[in-house]
């Protein structure tokens, strides 16, 4: 009898926490999203009313929500290809040398991925500073007027995305390097004997063999850009004029600054649905690609 309880003793502490903070919140979010719950609920639960799908209706009529979704799409369109291409190119180049020098270089590219975003954002904010930032100084050397890196509505989108691209490449370089280990040397040697140059070998042999890794990195990178939060939150707080407000920042502000828990929960469910649909579409495209 004692023995049958043993696995439950081992598994339950972690399972209880996982249920409480991983599974239960989804149900809670779905329920709250059909109420008008806000901060007054903490005073009395009688302040919470069932409102059906009103929150969703309001959401789809909310200009700010559409702007946030548009920004998120824009960030993803800029960010995903940049990260995939940059990390693939750097990984291919890094893979060329096997010496100590090349291995040391890997670490340099990886460091941004593990350092705290708040610290990183502070440093970039200083570099971007209009009056005494290093970037504007470098521009002034070639005779360019000071640039409003973080307060121009258009430019700020790119400035914020650049920091995220800088931070996002390191991990994907590691994934590509791991995948490159699986490319059989014989293929490249055979191609070399046939007179194919390095560039040709990379394009016609290595990259097709990396198809799965490229697909994988694209999917995970897309998901992370759809959840984009940290960089704009710290660098611009979503400004100027909402130009860098991603969907996640919109939800955070509605939820924790304005305390509109019901409304923000409805938004989070919509975002979740969008992420799920895009991921499923990507998986489908991959399957179609395999068939031919």
């Amino acid at each position, binding site marked *: 009898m004692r023995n049958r309880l*043993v*696995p*439950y*003793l*081992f*598994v339950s502490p*972690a*399972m209880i*926490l*996982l*249920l409480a*903070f*991983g*599974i*239960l*919140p*989804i149900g*809670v979010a779905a329920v*709250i999203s059909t109420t008008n719950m806000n901060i007054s609920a*903490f005073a009395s639960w009688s302040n919470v009313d069932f409102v059906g799908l009103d929150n969703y209706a309001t959401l789809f009529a909310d200009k700010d929500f559409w702007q946030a979704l548009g920004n998120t799409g824009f960030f993803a369109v800029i960010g995903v290809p940049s990260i995939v291409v940059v990390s693939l190119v*750097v990984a291919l*180049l*890094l893979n060329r*040398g096997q010496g100590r*020098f*090349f291995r040391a*270089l890997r*670490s*340099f590219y*990886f*460091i*941004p*991925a593990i*350092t*705290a*975003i*708040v*610290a990183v*954002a*502070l*440093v*970039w904010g*200083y570099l971007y500073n209009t009056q*005494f930032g*290093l970037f504007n*100084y470098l521009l002034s050397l070639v005779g360019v007027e000071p640039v409003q890196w973080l307060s121009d509505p258009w430019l700020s989108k790119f400035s914020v995305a650049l920091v995220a691209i*800088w931070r996002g490449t390191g991990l994907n370089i590691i994934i590509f390097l791991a995948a490159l280990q699986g490319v059989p040397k014989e293929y490249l040697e055979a191609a070399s004997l046939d007179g194919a140059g390095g560039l040709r070998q990379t394009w016609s042999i290595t990259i097709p063999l990396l198809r799965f890794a490229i697909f994988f990195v694209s999917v995970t990178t897309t998901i992370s850009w759809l*959840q984009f*939060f940290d960089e704009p939150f*710290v660098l611009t707080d979503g400004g100027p004029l909402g130009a860098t407000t991603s*969907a*996640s920042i919109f*939800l*955070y502000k509605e939820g924790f600054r304005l305390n509109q*828990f019901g409304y*923000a929960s409805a938004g*989070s469910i919509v*975002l*979740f649905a969008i*992420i799920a649909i895009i991921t499923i579409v990507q998986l489908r495209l991959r399957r179609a690609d395999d068939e031919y």
Partner: protein
Amino acid sequence: MSTSTARARSRALTATIGAALGVGALITAFPFFWMLLTSVKPQRESIDFPPSILPQEPTFEWYVRLFTELDFARYLGNTVIVVLFGFVGLLLMAMAGYAFAKFDFRGRRWMFFLVLATMMIPVQVTMIPTYLILNGMKLTNTLLGIALPTLVTGFSIFLFRQFMSTIPTEMLEAARIDGAGEFRIFFRIVLPMSGPILAVQVVLTFIGGWNSFLWPLIIASDQKLYTLSVGLALLNQQLAVNPSLQMAAASVMVVPILVVFVVFQRYVIQGFALSGLK
């Protein structure tokens, strides 16, 4: 074309690529050099235009001020406590992974399905309900509340299970026949044999806990409970005119991670490569 010229060419190409990668690496790491250099500059130098690259009169006054005038000693202490909570979570996840790997019990299949399912849920969905749940448990504004939402992750349980499945069952049976208790078996046999995966997870837990930002931001409203990341974000808003102080604070946050990275590089890279696979 003779082989020797081809080889010389190939070597020249590798050298060129190495040089280009070297420049790229320096550019990538440049913000960190700039942070460290600025952190020891007097304020006047850090807002000078044109900026000087190297500090003219190096000073450590900003580091001193962080820990004397500002509350960074407390933030540091809180951050360490949050990291320690993370290690407790790690132990719980190792236990769960062991149960999934080595026991057959009722409910195992659907429990493991739940573990995998939690890996696909974005934090934005759970952010508000988790806050409300913690509020219901009266755990908002506590360090435990900051640590709880990320204490257990499906992915880590999954990794532990995968690794522990490879431990030979005969060894565990032999220990049982010798009369060893189940927890003794876990701590004396299973954990020591899981060294590689434990090392990876300890390092990842440290980095994750140290850097965590969203939950401390949401859960800690009392300044006494701020972690380094929240204290740093506050500095961003309040003291926009003193980059030196900001860079010193950023360095306090970044340098320990760099040290961990340099020492445990193998585990860090391995761990992130694995976590990229989720």
